[in-house]
């Protein structure tokens, strides 16, 4: 079981799901109506490390963060 959290303006509770890789996470998130429209502009961190590797293997307890477009300053 891994956790997925949605940061900043994404009004979405943390969800838990089964996934071997980030690609599995992608497939499942694409099916969530409130999340799907954000995905083309969101970045991803696994356990607070940014990654752009869809093949990344996940293990039980991993935490995936979804980061929408930013604007600090």
């Amino acid at each position: 079981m891994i956790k997925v959290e949605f940061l900043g303006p994404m009004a979405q509770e943390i969800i838990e799901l089964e996934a071997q890789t980030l690609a599995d996470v992608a497939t499942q998130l694409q099916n969530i109506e409130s999340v799907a429209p954000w995905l083309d502009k969101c970045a991803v961190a696994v356990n607070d490390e940014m990654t752009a590797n869809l093949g990344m293997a996940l293990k039980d307890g991993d935490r995936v963060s979804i980061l929408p477009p930013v604007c600090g300053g």
Partner: protein
Amino acid sequence: MEIEFPFYLLCVVDSLELYEGPLAIESIFSKWLHEEAESNYGAYIPFVGTIRAEDEIDALSFDIYEPVLQKWFDDWEEKAAKRGAKVKMAHAIGDVPVHASSYISAVFSPRRRVALELIDEFVEDFKANAPIWKYDVKDGKRVYAADRSTPMVGSGILSK
């Protein structure tokens, strides 16, 4: 006797500071000046970001994801150290009213060229990749500033 570089590396303290609400810009500027008063840097360039009155907003508001911001900042500390320089940064969390300041960052360097180049690169990368989300505050409502926001490097990998 001058403080040598290897000693200085042992003394690095964390230079990422997050505050609730508007920044006390003058005291942060002074604190950083004093922290590096004996470090023998020739150039100190702060960048101060202040909320502009526009679109009838009352304030801007900020969410920060601290763990990823800290890593982003740690990487920048390393990059700066390789060029003999040092970066510092402070940012507001929550509401910051018009004409108050939400952001200050700074570069210290022995040399002016390095300092001028680094402050530009640092601020631009900050705008593009620091995990901070901005909202307009208008009539008590908090609205995500979607049109002014930038997808971070690597965005889109989860989409179809």
